[in-house]
């Protein structure tokens, strides 16, 4: 590799060349260091010493394997075992007192390319001369020593001085580094002499009194640092005076060792260094004997932060945390499990970054924390993010990159085809062989292929669930297994271009970023039961609880969603099945307290991998557990027995699975194992170290608990945090509260259904109260789904004493987007709210938000009059309920303020929620204005051919301060152009003012106009391509003349 790059030395491989050169320097240093320690060793005879020295020489030359050496002194020969005279030689005379006393010869055993001196480097000439010089001195000293036995010369040189002497001759650059290090060292030890010396050479006084001070915004005068060279000698003399020789010696040894990190340091700093190159560099460095290398802490930090940035992310928050837990050495094993184009510079993506950091944090803390012991991580492989590009280019599929600009419908239409195209494409051989290594490594275990998006990581957007994660059963012969893995990867790649993620990116303004998709491949943790494979249980845990089912549960208590089998059913929301919810800090406060509820909301199905068909199947959990009761590990931890109206923990050995009414509760897991303790420690450790609430996916094989994924909780589905808007005027606020707030947003609400507190309390019979429930049920079916909220007294879903709240069932309210329970003080006491407990878990699974409201508490507001004084839509929507119009009020939000909708922003982190009426969105307003412009613009007078809309207003993503980007296809004279610009400028100012009135935001140049001429179109000017390229999406705005 080294030779190859050297031969191919081209302009852009200059850096390679420098790198190789640097490695040669390091070899020299090794050699010199070895030499000095030999010559210093008084116990060796001259002969022994010389024999040792010749062994040191070959490794310092370019091709150690084919290098041999001989020293001839006074007719005595010392040579390496492989010594042979050839025609490729380098010779240096050993001189003592101006007389040649011997010769040092280096031979190459094979022909090598011509370089500076035959096949040898210039530097090697310098080195050989330096060595023979040293040998001369050594022989001389020996002879003197032999002559005056036991006499000590006071002037005997320290070994470090010998090194300096050598460096002066061979490697001035290294010497300069050593000098700098020594200077810093002395400086740090407040050596006065060095301070004054430096003061002379490089004045550090930046105070205004300094004669050279030029003013605060002026650069400091440059000092000639070359002068450092001139004072090298002085510096080392100062050192010699002030520091004991052993210490200097140690320092030198240490610095020389540290100097070996330089190639790695430099490589790591290289922007986008190819995968193969950095892998080699890491391997080379860490395969060295640990005793021979030390990494200075500053080098260590530089290297690891560079590597973290290179492979994980540039995000400062991540790098900051990761650098405390990730060591350069970790990358050796990490890159050993990485597949990607060897010359590529791809990253790992968010998912891998998250789980790798979590692994490091947990492992680091295992020592200290007993509870973390035994937590495991699945075997994983990583595919770099550029592999997808590599794949696309390799198959000439580049047109797929344009997919994202197509109309969503078109994307949806094309997706299945695209997926097949991807599945039928091939990977470059290098990558396929990489995949083969994965298959071989993970033999016998099913595999999960997870997408690891870079956008998710860098922009904090929650892409969870947007891209595919696929299971591969990994059965059959090697080729079959390889084939299905490749198939799955191609499908995950295709999902990058699917309509949903693209729509999601469009919404968040991330469309123009290229989606590099890393892939995380993990073994599936689990056990084989029958012909199925599955974890004993799996799920996802959150360090902050966003679904407080009781006022006694705080956000800090965390929450776990747990299911038997694959965790997919806990991670996703599945129709009419439920995961077990538990709070690791308050495990005893169950979501479902009553036996009937615990049964109703227990998991009934489980996801498993069918090893016969290779597919994921959803099977009846109880049936499977009954059938395989004996094989299933820790069955007793998973189930309870329903008997006589109670749920009892299974009687271990006496359990008769076939006869028992088993219910999945995980009771024994919670009560008798340390699972919850473990989860608690994992969650809170990770949250503390990462500095943000986290969610963690986990699974168990019945013996060990595995952490599968970790990411910030704000990136989990439905838990994105939005700040409470601050500038909402009082009259637009419907309510605000700061009690028991969880995180979530409910927006674009069109209707508010309000059961008037007083009126409901005054109803005189149960029948009437039941009737209110009936009305709610009918409204639930009539109103647009998820576009209305329900507000009412006390407990929604009361049973028995239904005076306390409308006696609805879950089915009566399942289309609402938010359920508000209002607790108004009655006399002395405030009624307790239900916290949605009657159908809490249904709400969670359907992602219906819940919010209790205490209007009588300070800092909580409820603007009831807003609901009481608007037209009641009830009778427009439902017939026959005129009599109840005073009880049930249905308010259309656009009636309250024209065009407005209701937004409820809940920020659990800040413990605040606000419901307010929101003006028509910025997009509609802008579209209206664009049409106005088209209407008013006299196209003939201004020479306008046509008008196009691009950017956020066209995409429908405009925010309060977004520009309106207009492209004007102009075909007029300069004069017309001036006039047009003036006209548009004036119009733009008007819009700025209007927008300020609407939003309070000051914009400057809201109207952003780009003029395109025919010339631009010919030249393919970047703006012009918007209207010419079939891939760009613009909206043509009809002008007046076209209307005529």
């Amino acid at each position: 590799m080294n030779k190859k790059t050297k031969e191919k030395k081209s302009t852009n491989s200059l850096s390679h060349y420098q790198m190789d050169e640097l490695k040669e320097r390091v070899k020299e240093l090794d050699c010199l260091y070895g030499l000095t320690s030999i010559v210093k060793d008084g116990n060796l005879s001259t002969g022994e010493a010389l024999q040792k020295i010749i062994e040191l020489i070959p490794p310092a030359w370019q091709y150690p394997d084919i290098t041999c050496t001989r020293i001839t002194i006074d007719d005595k020969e010392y040579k390496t075992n492989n010594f042979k005279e050839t025609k490729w030689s380098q010779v240096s005379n050993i001189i003592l007192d101006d007389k040649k006393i011997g010769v040092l010869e280096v031979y190459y055993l094979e022909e090598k390319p011509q370089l500076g001196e035959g096949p040898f480097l210039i530097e090697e000439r310098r080195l050989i001369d330096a060595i023979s010089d040293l040998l001369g001195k050594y022989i001389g000293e020996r002879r003197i020593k032999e002559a005056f036995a036991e006499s000590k010369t006071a002037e005997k040189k320290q070994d470090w001085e010998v090194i300096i002497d050598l460096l002066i001759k061979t490697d001035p650059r290294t010497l300069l580094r050593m000098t700098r290090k020594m200077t810093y060292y002395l400086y740090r030890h407040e050596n006065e002499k060095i301070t004054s010396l430096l003061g002379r050479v490089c004045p550090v006084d930046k105070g205004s009194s300094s004669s050279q001070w030029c003013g605060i915004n002026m650069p400091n005068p440059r000092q000639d640092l070359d002068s450092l060279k001139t004072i090298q000698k002085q510096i080392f003399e100062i050192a010699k005076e002030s520091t004991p020789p052993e210490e200097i010696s140690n320092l030198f040894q240490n610095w020389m060792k540290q100097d070996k990190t330089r190639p790695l340091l430099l490589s790591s700093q290289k922007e986008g260094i190819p995968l193969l190159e950095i892998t080699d560099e890491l391997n080379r460095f860490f395969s060295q004997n640990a005793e021979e290398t030390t990494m200075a802490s500053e080098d260590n930090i530089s290297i690891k932060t560079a590597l973290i940035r290179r492979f994980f992310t540039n995000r400062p928050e991540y790098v900051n945390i990761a650098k405390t837990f990730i060591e350069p050495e970790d990358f050796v094993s990490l890159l050993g499990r990485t597949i990607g184009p060897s010359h590529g510079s791809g990253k790992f993506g968010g998912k891998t970054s998250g789980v790798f950091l979590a692994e490091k944090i947990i492992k680091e803390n295992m020592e200290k924390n007993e509870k973390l012991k035994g937590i495991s991580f699945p075997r994983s492989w990583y595919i770099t993010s550029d592999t997808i590009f590599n794949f696309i280019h390799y198959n000439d599929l580049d047109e797929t990159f344009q997919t994202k600009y197509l109309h969503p419908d078109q994307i949806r239409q094309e997706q299945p085809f695209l997926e097949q195209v991807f599945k039928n494409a091939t990977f470059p051989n290098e990558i396929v062989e990489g995949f083969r290594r994965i298959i071989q490594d993970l033999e016998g275990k099913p595999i999960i292929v997870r997408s690891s998006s870079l956008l998710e990581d860098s922009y904090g957007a929650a892409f969870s669930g947007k891209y595919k994660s696929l299971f591969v059963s990994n059965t059959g012969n090697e080729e079959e297994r390889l084939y299905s893995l490749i198939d799955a990867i191609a499908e995950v790649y295709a999902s990058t271009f699917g309509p949903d993620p693209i729509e999601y990116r469009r919404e968040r303004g991330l469309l123009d970023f290229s989606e590099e998709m890393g892939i995380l491949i993990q073994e599936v943790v689990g056990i084989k039961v029958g012909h199925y494979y599955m974890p004993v249980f799996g799920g996802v845990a959150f360090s902050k609880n966003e679904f407080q089912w009781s006022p006694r549960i705080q956000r800090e208590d965390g929450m776990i969603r747990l299911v038997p089998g694959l965790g997919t059913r806990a991670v996703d929301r599945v129709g009419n099945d439920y995961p077990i919810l538990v709070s690791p800090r308050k495990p005893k406060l169950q979501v479902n307290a009553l036996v009937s509820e615990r049964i109703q909301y227990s998991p009934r199905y489980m996801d498993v991998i069918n090893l016969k068909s290779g597919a994921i199947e959803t099977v009846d959990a109880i049936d499977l557990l009954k059938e395989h009761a004996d094989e299933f590990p820790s069955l007793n931890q998973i189930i309870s027995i329903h008997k006589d109206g109670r749920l009892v923990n299974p009687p271990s050995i006496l359990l008769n699975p076939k006869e028992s009414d088993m219910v999945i509760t995980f009771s024994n897991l919670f009560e008798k194992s340390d699972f919850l303790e473990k989860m608690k420690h994992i969650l809170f450790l990770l949250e503390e170290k990462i500095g943000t609430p986290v969610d963690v996916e986990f699974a168990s094989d019945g013996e060990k608990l595995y952490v599968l994924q970790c990411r910030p909780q704000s990136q989990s589905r439905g838990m994105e945090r939005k700040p409470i808007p601050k500038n909402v005027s009082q009259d637009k606020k419907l309510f605000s509260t700061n009690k028991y707030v969880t995180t979530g947003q409910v927006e674009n609400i069109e209707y508010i259904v309000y059961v008037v507190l007083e009126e409901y309390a005054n109803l005189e019979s149960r029948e009437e109260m039941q009737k209110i429930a009936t009305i709610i049920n009918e409204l639930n079916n009539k109103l647009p789904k998820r576009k209305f909220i329900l507000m009412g007294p006390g407990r929604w879903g009361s049973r028995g004493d239904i005076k306390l709240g409308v006696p609805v069932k879950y089915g009566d309210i399942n289309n609402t987007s938010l359920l508000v329970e209002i607790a108004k003080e009655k006399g002395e006491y405030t009624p307790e709210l239900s916290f949605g407990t009657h159908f809490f878990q249904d709400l969670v699974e359907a992602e219906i938000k819940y919010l209790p409201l205490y209007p009588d508490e300070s800092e909580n507001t409820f603007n009831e009059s807003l609901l009481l004084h608007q037209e009641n839509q009830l009778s427009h929507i439902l017939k026959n309920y005129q009599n109840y119009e005073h009880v049930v009020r249905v308010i259309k939000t656009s009636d309250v303020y024209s065009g407005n909708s209701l937004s409820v922003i809940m920020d659990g982190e800040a413990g605040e929620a606000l419901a307010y009426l929101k003006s028509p969105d910025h997009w509609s307003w802008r579209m209206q204005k664009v049409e106005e412009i088209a209407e008013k613009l006299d196209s003939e007078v201004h020479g306008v051919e046509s008008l196009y809309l691009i950017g956020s207003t066209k995409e429908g993503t405009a925010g309060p301060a977004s520009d309106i980007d207009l492209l004007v296809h102009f075909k007029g004279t300069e004069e017309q152009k001036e006039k047009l610009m003036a006209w548009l400028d004036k119009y733009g100012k008007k819009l700025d003012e209007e927008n300020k009135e609407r939003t309070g935001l000051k914009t400057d140049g809201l109207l952003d106009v780009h003029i395109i001429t025919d010339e631009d179109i010919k030249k393919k000017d970047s703006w012009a391509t918007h209207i010419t390229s079939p891939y760009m999406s613009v909206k043509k705005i009809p002008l007046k003349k076209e209307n005529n």
Partner: protein
Amino acid sequence: MAQKGFNAYTMAQEQFEKVAEQLELDQTTRNLLRVPMREYHFLIPVRMDDGNIKIFKGFRIQHNDAKGPCKGGIRFHPQETADTVRALAMWMTWKCAVVDIPLGGGKGGVICDPHDLSEREQENLCRGWVRQIARDIGPVRDIPAPDVMTNSQHMLWMMDEYQTIFGGQYPGVITGKPVELGGSLGRPEATGYGLVYMLREALKERDTDIANATASIEGFGNVARYAAELFIEYGGTVVSVSCWDQKDSCAYSYYKGKGIDLEELVKITDRFGAIDKKKAENLGYECRPGKDWLKHEVDILMPNALENSITKENVNDINSSVKLIICGANGPITPEADDVLEKKEVVVIPDFLANAGGVVCSYFEQVQSNQNYYWSKEEVLGKLDDKMTDAFHKVWELAKRKKVRLRDAAYMIAISRVAEACKLRGWI
């Protein structure tokens, strides 16, 4: 605080006054019976899991024990009020009296939400409740039972605490216990079977052969299923049952003209009583909207699921073939609908008579516990049959003789029995 709107206690008292008027009870008797004889209000300190002590408010209301020790449930409810408990205690007195078992009426509760309590805290609460009231309950004074949000586990904790305090085995202090520990066999069947024992007698009165009778049942829960079981065993035909479908979030009724096969339906029903729609259709059942259950051409309707199921809006959907409605659920017919049915000459067996099988079985459990000897299921159900049959005929006879509705006759009998007991004791 003056209460506007609905109040259960006021309603119970109004109902009592109406019947007292018909029975021409004197004022003293009315004064005694319209309010509870004893009320206990007490505080229960509970050490919570976090070490703090929380004070809960508990009640026990003993309405009347002239006929025997009080009997009634213990409710855990966050919005419990004394008035609700008073009303419920009074209804218990009448319910025991109408089936003529030697028990009075009581009810109790704790203001709490079990959703906010750990199991250990609930146990402490149960034991705390017993410690406060131990002297005033007991096998010969007042026997609690499970009710809203309490179950057999709570009962066992209470029984254990009581036995600890009094240092003896008193299984008769509480009912609703599991069969292994002082419970009675036949409890799951009791309400449904009791219903059909009464239905059998009613059909005899209306000269209908139960073996040729057809019925449509609302619900497919415990009561509905056992009622169907016995009805079919007697030779009757159930053409339709209904249930709530969690997935579709609505109720369906399943119809089969030839009559349902209970066994096959139970096989495709989950433990919440929801029938698998697809499988039912494969078995030849017609799946219809839930409300259709009352439209079928049958002799008998059994509303066994919901409150306010038959209202003035749908009462006219009821097929003219229907001769008899027997109420397994509580309050399934609104008063307006009741009036319409009377005009149509449909016999309505009221809830508080029809579903009294449950309380009778509780009484049997207590009897067995007291004598520490437990009967076979057949014995329990046989004795249940006797009680229900007897109760029905007493009510039927009075209703026929006085030309009043069965509901009114039942109340008259119940209240007069309690008044009589008070008189015999010399209280009034």
